[in-house]
């Protein structure tokens, strides 16, 4: 009798909490539905008896979740785009070391460009390659008579003022990588000048990665800074958009890692193996997923016009992911405090600068030399970062973001005031120049 009632209660509990007896593999991921649903289906078909349980979270929220739950992990797999999220988790000791079977690993090259596809310590594995680029709405550009952009530097052109959109790097792992790519491609100072100038051209800075493709697809904004699959899958679904990689871009693997002490280590390994196998890699070609496999041979079976990162000269930036993850909090907070949270002031400054330049181009006034130098000063003010790259990687600064000492608040206040004053001054100078040129 007692056993019976225990069984009964057990059955109810099992119903309540999900089937505790069947083998699960619990995956924390930031990937879109199309991707993880397809993998769930194909993996479960190949591995009867294992159920894939998806816990979809935004990248940063996923890291937070794993940290908060580390005493008793509930997830087996962490599966996102941003490599520095994995670095953070590795540094915290939250990932399990694993060596997938040799026959699987033999087909995958060690590096793409200069970037190692897998973590040298065997804590996480690249399963798809992503590049960063620009997507635009054809109808929108036609209506506004704008040419399609080619390079990151195009984003600084006056004609794109108020037509661009980006997500805040602090909110989106992929945008953070784009920002780092730009900083590493052009150097800290020129990189920030580009980001600030492009920031002034942004019509909007969203807090969700998918806010960018959404705004471009619906035609709210013309051009968006996105990771490639957002562009490629939107094209595949028939939206009137296009996508291009700028010549200076980094290609970075999206990775998968096993959570240390997860409840189902056996199943977790099976999932990683499947992801890296040929069958698992072929899934990436599906139009609604549109990602680039890590097995070079597979591109022979790719759909027409599919970009091949191993052949095409994609890249041109030797992405340093240690540098990137080391200063990640600093770069994100810097971007927020001088661009995202001061967006109105920054936009106003650039509006005035463009106006003055336009007036100057038309005018044949005697004061043009003076106006020119005023504009140059204004541009300088509106493209300056408050700290240099050496300082940004210093222990004292990066540590401030992991403590409650108040240094972080102090730094952020300094940056924000620096930005606000600079933009106000830049606007003032540009307005003056505009008046002179008239």
């Amino acid at each position, binding site marked *: 009798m007692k056993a019976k009632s225990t069984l009964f209660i057990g059955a109810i509990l099992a119903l309540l909490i999900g089937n505790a007896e069947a083998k699960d593999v619990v995956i924390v991921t930031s990937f879109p*539905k199309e991707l993880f649903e397809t993998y769930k289906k194909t993996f479960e078909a190949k591995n009867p008896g294992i159920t894939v*349980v998806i816990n979809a979270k935004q990248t940063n929220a996923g890291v937070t979740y794993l940290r908060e739950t580390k005493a008793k992990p509930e997830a087996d797999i962490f599966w996102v785009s941003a490599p520095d999220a994995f670095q953070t988790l590795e540094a915290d000791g939250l990932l399990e070391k694993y060596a997938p079977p040799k026959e699987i690993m033999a087909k995958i090259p060690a590096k793409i460009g200069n970037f190692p596809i897998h973590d040298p310590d065997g804590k996480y594995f690249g399963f798809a390659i992503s590049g960063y680029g620009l997507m635009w709405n054809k109808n929108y550009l036609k209506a506004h008579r704008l040419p399609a952009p080619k390079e990151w530097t195009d984003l600084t052109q006056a004609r794109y003022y108020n037509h661009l959109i980006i997500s805040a790097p602090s909110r989106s792992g992929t945008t953070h990588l784009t920002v780092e790519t730009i900083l590493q491609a052009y150097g800290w100072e020129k990189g920030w000048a580009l980001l600030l100038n492009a920031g002034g051209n942004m019509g909007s800075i969203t807090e969700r990665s*998918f806010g960018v493709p959404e*705004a471009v697809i619906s035609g709210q904004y013309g051009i968006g800074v996105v990771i490639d699959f957002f562009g490629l899958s939107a094209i595949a679904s028939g939206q009137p958009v296009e996508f291009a990689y700028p010549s200076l871009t980094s290609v970075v693997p999206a990775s998968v890692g096993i959570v240390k002490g997860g409840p189902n280590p056996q199943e977790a390994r099976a999932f990683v193996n499947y992801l890296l196998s040929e069958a698992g890699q072929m899934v990436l070609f599906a139009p609604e997923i549109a990602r680039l496999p890590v097995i070079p041979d597979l591109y022979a079976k790719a759909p027409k016009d599919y970009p091949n990162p191993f052949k095409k000269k994609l890249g041109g930036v030797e992405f340093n992911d240690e540098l990137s993850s080391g200063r990640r909090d600093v770069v994100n907070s810097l971007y927020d405090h001088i661009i995202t949270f001061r967006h109105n002031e920054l936009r106003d400054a650039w509006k005035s600068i463009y106006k003055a330049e336009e007036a100057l181009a038309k005018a044949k006034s005697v004061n043009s030399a003076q106006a020119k130098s005023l504009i140059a000063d204004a541009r300088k003010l509106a493209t300056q970062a408050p700290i240099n790259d050496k300082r940004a990687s210093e222990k004292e600064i990066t540590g401030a973001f992991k*403590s409650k000492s108040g240094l972080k608040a102090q730094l952020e206040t300094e940056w924000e005031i620096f930005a*606000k004053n600079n933009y106000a001054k830049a606007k003032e100078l540009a307005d003056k120049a505009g008046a002179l040129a008239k």
Partner: protein
Amino acid sequence: MAIASARAAPRIAARIDWWQGSLMALLLVLLIAFILYPVLRVLSISLTDDENNLTLLHFLNFFRRPLFREALWNTLSSGFLVVLFSAILALPMAYILARYEFRGKLLLQTAATLPLVIPPFVGAVALQLILGRSGMVNLVLMDWFDFSIPFMEGLTGVVLVQTLHFFPFILLNTVVSLANVDSSLEEAAQNLGCHGIRLFRRVTLPLMLPGFIAGSLLTFIRAIDDLGTPLMLNYKNLLAPQAYLRITTIGMDDVDGYVVCVVLVMLSLAALLAARKYLSLAEYATAQRAAPVAGKLQGINLAIVWCVIAMILGVSLLPHIGIIILSFSKIWSFTLLPTTYTLSNYHEILFRVPHFVVNTLIYTLLAAALDIVLGAAIAFLLLRSRVPGRNFLDAVATMPLAIPGVVLAVGYLRVFHGWDFPGVGAPLTSSWLILVIAYTSRRLPYTVRACYAALQQVHVSLEESAQNLGANRWRTFMRITLPMIGGGLIAGGLIAFITSCVELASTIMLVPRIELGPISYGIYLYMQSPLGRGAGAALGVVAILLVSAGTYLTHRIFGGRAGSAFRI
């Protein structure tokens, strides 16, 4: 409501009895475990330093930072503006709805509640497609006149959208007050020669003021706590988005986010207490009421009234209309209307992955039922007992009105993760029960208020006579009290149900796995994928239908006083 309870002097239980005492203890344990303690756990972060010593440094830093000062100022000023514009929209409508009988009134009342509940994300997208910079309206303007209006930009956009979103709070509450105005007072004034404007200004206005104040303060609190609107307009220099962005970005380590939360909670609590204080004094006077006069609207007047109200509602229901169009669209890009239509979005959410809809029904109905039980128990203790601790119970039960969903969710993660909850066999945070608990806690104030209002109208003497005739307490409750307050209970539960249907902030943080997600989580997932916004919109339509059905029933049951459940 605490002070008002003095009037309904509990004559049944003159002494504290063990039954009421243990009910009180049980409720306190529940409320402390699921509301007070998790919230305090989160907020205490803002008061400690790295070594867990008490410090005020973080609060000083808050006021030292221009960004936060600006956010505070923007929050307060936009809150006031929203109240002002909402009042302008709501008051004429309230007067008409309360004082006239006409065809289609129930329909209008239902429609007037709908703006309060916009499905997350898709509402934003839909509104952008209509009012955004390349939205319907601006595309037409660009085509015809070559200019566009930035409806959806900056703080102006936030105020505009929030006004359309929250004005029903003022409307519903003012209608309640007007319905409660004792018509004999107006008649007396008329007999004494007071008519027209003067009658309105000297008699009607002061009498409807309590409802108006209650609605205004609720609007204010909701506007300053509102996360969805600023996020959808990408306007970040307000307190709520600052708190949210900081907590979810750097995570638990970022103390600034919690400081902002505390400031926000303090503002809301201050507004709440002020409103309660005022109401408890003012409402007392209008407790005795006779049926108010209802004029009949016909012919041309009816047509005018319908036109005006339909216009206001039409604008505030734009997101809903947009969602419906979006749900049938395949491709809608930079054009007036979608260029390709499809039914596949509905196939996706109803047949391929129906669990979002099913889960929503399970969670919200369970939460509503729990809220009814808890609300009735709390209202009973507040009105019919003298057990000590009632004010505290009242305060904790009302607190969720002032607590952002993110704070509660983070608190739950902090408190309930990592240990097996007795009876569940797993941590509460890995079970769907956590969502039911979150919804129950977040919506409890509504049912408490509704039950309180209902119970207040049942005179104690009725219960006393039943007991004098030999009925025991349980029988009295079942046969006398319950039938009389049943309508109020159900209406309160329905409001908990409709608002939970679109609850977002706590849902996103707490869903343990995708199969356990409700509609709002499903929308979030769909919106992340490039092909998903149509399906997301279809889920939004389902949410709107659920909410509409709930609202319609509320008005059917509660009649003119439906708004009293939205009270503070």
